């Protein structure tokens, strides 16, 4: 504890000797007595950079991964405890601090267990090996003759000869080299060291309770939103209609009289207020009258304009995932052809807690508290914006609201840094609800075009799928810029990242097959509130909605049961077949073609199926819906999902994630759409952008398919992919209406029924 506060003071010396009220990860009361400082310059080739064992046996893991509310820290702690053979409650995940942690890459993309897990596991395996060497010397034995249980090493067959990890290394450094090549997600850590055999696992595979839940239930947990530092002021940002519009004039008369106003800040098109209290900042931001210059970028007038643009604009690159044979030639010879276009709207991450950060910017150093998904990316973005060397910016991650990809673009850290620099004091900024609904980087619209042809036997011989979508540009690094840095005139140099490519039917094998995801340049991106960013399993829910609806359309036309029809094309895709079969069994699926026989009842019921592969995790989904034929309202009554993400680390934690994906996915499928016109975003609160509520939540049944023979894969987002497709197919089954545009609103259902 003493060393820790000393080093912190040293760090802060340059920034005005501010003493930060440091908030420890609150779930580990042991920490205060037991924490050991890692090397200050985190070198992944030093074992001490990865973990430390204190004199009471507590193992602190300096993970470069964060928990976004998914429980992944608990799963990572299980992996480390398993490998080291220490009790689970002895593990402490330190919480990411860029001045100490190893950069394991951004926490995103369901890659934390898949990539970060083995990195931590191998570091733990090296530590175990070293501890056995130390124990062998102490016990006059050899490592091969030793066994470990609960952090106690003993000689096999002679348990009285024993020594604890704490006695061997407690409070001391290993000073051992470890191999670590490549960086971030791709870092390979000690691949030469043999980790424990999966068959000997005792802790991995069990439903350990989440480490941080008790303090979250009592208000003791310190979220990013709860960080307060001495002398801290409160800021709010006033956003322009578009990034390119500048404040032509700022009338401060209405705010001058507000007691507690510290400063109105303007830099480029960035405008904000800083006040002594939060409420004053809220009031001042509202009262400040800013006249903005004419916007240089026009918003599209409506979604039709966006889809027309997506259809007619030449792509930056086509992103071909499958290219087998010549689908065009096969289509020309097909006995019957199918063609359909599917639309997915702009949608929000819609974090419950709007973005929040605290920044303390000094003359040449800065400290940022934030709930970012990429602490090192935030560090780079803030350092570039402030013109500081990266090492002079310290990012202290604190868990924030669940973000589902949104905090991969840590806009608020830049806001807080700009305001703090302007007043020379630490500033906390939280976005207001309308800031978040308007300016968060959205999951962009997608237009998916599908063509297929069948032979005289009804067999698909041609498949041509194109997911036309926008690149994701609201990000830091790789030539991209966040909001505030754009507003002060920093320009992006890259055209954006992919919105994913999976879900276009590549799980199936057709004689001729092409799956592509053409990226359409999006001139509005970053300049208007229609910014584009990673939204949970980016792009997959839309592609899967299109491809799996299309499969269903063909199956229905061929009068074949939808499950049986899919099985015909899964070929040797064993995991796909298993997931599909498992979900059908759990759903008590009755083999028959869709739609179901029409009835005269007001409410029609239907079931639909879909499968997906996201980041190599396979899902099978069955939705059961009830459609009110008079109102067009769709109720999802029951949702069944099978899930194969390889070796399962924590079954209950995984189920919690899957339940969340299903509920969020039902919400996105039935009700969510960002509405806008040429003047801006129109859905700025929860009444205009509603999400699913308690009375409409379906019953959920989950089948976990554990594969101990496989590596562990991520579970944070794969199950979001098949949700919309299963629901659309169930609606068709119920009332014979094929919806090719989400969300599946009562108006669209009624319009479809009118047409039928």
């Amino acid at each position, binding site marked *: 504890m003493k060393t820790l506060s000393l080093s912190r003071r040293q760090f802060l010396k340059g920034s005005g000797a501010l003493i930060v009220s440091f908030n420890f990860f609150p779930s580990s009361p042991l920490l205060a007595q037991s924490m050991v400082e890692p090397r200050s310059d985190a070198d992944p080739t030093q074992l001490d950079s990865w973990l430390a064992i204190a004199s009471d046996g507590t193992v602190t893991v300096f993970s470069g991964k964060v928990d976004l509310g998914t429980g992944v820290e608990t799963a990572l702690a299980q992996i480390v405890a398993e490998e080291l053979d220490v009790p689970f409650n002895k593990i402490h995940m330190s919480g990411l601090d860029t001045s100490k942690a190893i950069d394991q890459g951004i926490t995103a993309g369901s890659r934390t267990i898949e990539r970060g897990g083995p990195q931590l596991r191998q570091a733990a395996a090296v530590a175990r090996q070293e501890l056995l060497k130390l124990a062998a010397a102490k016990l006059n034995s050899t490592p091969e003759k030793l066994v470990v249980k609960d952090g106690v090493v003993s000689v096999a067959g002679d348990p009285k000869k024993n020594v604890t990890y704490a006695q061997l290394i407690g409070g001391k450094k290993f000073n051992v080299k470890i191999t670590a090549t490549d960086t971030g997600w791709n870092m390979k850590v000690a691949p030469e060291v043999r980790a424990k055999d999966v068959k000997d696992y005792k802790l991995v595979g069990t439903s350990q309770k*989440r480490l941080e839940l008790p303090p979250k239930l009592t*208000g003791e947990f310190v*979220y990013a*939103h709860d960080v307060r530092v001495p002398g801290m002021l409160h800021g709010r940002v006033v956003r322009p209609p578009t990034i390119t519009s500048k404040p032509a004039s700022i009338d401060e008369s209405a705010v001058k009289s507000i007691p507690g106003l510290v400063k109105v800040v303007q830099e480029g098109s960035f405008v904000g207020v800083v006040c002594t209290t939060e409420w004053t900042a809220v009031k001042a931001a509202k009262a400040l009258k800013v006249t903005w210059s004419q916007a240089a970028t026009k918003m599209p007038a409506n979604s039709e304009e966006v889809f027309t643009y997506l259809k007619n604009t030449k792509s930056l690159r086509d992103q071909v995932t499958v290219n087998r044979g010549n689908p065009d030639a096969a289509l020309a010879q097909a006995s019957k052809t199918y063609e359909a276009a599917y639309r997915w709207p702009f949608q929000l991450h819609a974090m419950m807690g709007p973005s929040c950060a605290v920044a303390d910017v000094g003359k040449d150093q800065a400290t940022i508290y934030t709930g970012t998904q990429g602490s090192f990316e935030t560090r780079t973005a803030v350092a570039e914006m402030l013109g500081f060397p990266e090492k002079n910016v310290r990012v202290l991650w604190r868990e924030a609201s669940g973000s589902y990809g949104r905090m991969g673009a840590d806009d608020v850290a830049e806001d807080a840094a700009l305001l703090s620099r302007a007043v020379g004091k630490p500033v906390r900024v939280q976005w207001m*609800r309308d800031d978040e609904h308007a300016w968060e980087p959205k999951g962009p619209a997608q237009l998916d075009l599908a063509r297929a042809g069948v032979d005289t036997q009804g067999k698909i011989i041609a498949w041509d799928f194109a997911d036309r979508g926008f690149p994701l540009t609201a990000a830091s690094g790789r030539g991209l810029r966040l909001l505030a840095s754009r507003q002060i005139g920093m320009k992006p140099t890259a055209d954006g990242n992919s919105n994913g490519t999976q879900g276009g039917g590549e799980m199936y094998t057709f004689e001729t097959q092409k799956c592509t995801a053409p990226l359409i340049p999006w001139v509005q991106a970053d300049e208007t509130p229609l910014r584009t960013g990673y939204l949970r399993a980016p792009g997959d829910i839309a592609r899967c909605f299109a491809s799996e609806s299309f499969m269903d359309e063909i199956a229905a036309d061929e009068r074949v049961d939808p499950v049986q029809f899919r099985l015909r094309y899964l070929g040797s895709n064993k995991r796909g077949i298993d997931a599909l079969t498992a979900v059908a069994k759990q759903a008590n699926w009755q083999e028959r073609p869709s739609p179901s026989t029409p009835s005269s009842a007001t409410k029609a019921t239907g079931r639909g199926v879909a499968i997906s592969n996201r980041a190599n995790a396979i899902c099978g989904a069955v939705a059961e819906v009830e459609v009110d034929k008079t109102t067009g309202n769709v109720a999802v009554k029951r949702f069944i999902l099978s899930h194969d993400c390889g070796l399962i680390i924590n079954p209950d934690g995984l189920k919690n994630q899957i339940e*969340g994906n*299903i509920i969020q996915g039902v919400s996105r499928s039935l009700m969510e759409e960002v509405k806008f016109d040429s003047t801006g975003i129109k859905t700025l609160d929860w009444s205009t952008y509603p999400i699913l509520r308690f009375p409409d939540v379906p019953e959920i049944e989950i089948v976990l398919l554990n594969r101990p023979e496989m590596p562990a894969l991520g579970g944070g987002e794969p199950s979001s992919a098949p949700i919309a497709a299963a629901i659309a197919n169930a609606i068709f089954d119920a009332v014979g209406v094929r919806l090719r545009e989400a969300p599946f609103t009562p108006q669209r259902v009624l319009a479809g029924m009118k047409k039928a």
Partner: protein
Amino acid sequence: MARIPLKVNGKSQVVDADPETPLLYILRNDLQLNGPKYGCGMAQCGACTVIMDGNAIRSCVTQVSAAQNKPVTTLEGLGSTKKMHKLQQAFVDEQAVQCGYCINGMVMSSKALLDKNPKPTDSQIKEALAGNLCRCGTHIRILRAVKRAAGQLV
């Protein structure tokens, strides 16, 4: 500015504040009670819920002046990690949290419900929580937690 007497979690204290300040900001910033959260500022999401005079209210739209001398209970007033209230414990037992940003509102709205209706039906719980939004999709576990706290989990 005015001196406003408050009674929060059984403790009487006086704050010096603009009487129009939403109670939420006073609880969080003046009294350092982090349980209630800012979610929308419009009484649409429930993250800021506290109990005042026995009713679950939205502290983001309740002026601090309206809370004068009225008993206010926040999440912290129910229990601590050392001694949890049965509702808090039930949420842990059911692992009924993902990010937890909404969970203050879920617990406080459920507390107000169970105080008035100790044995609610499923649909009564759903109705009582219909104004509380959760983006992570933890609804099913939250329902189970409330039923568990009410001794109704079968």
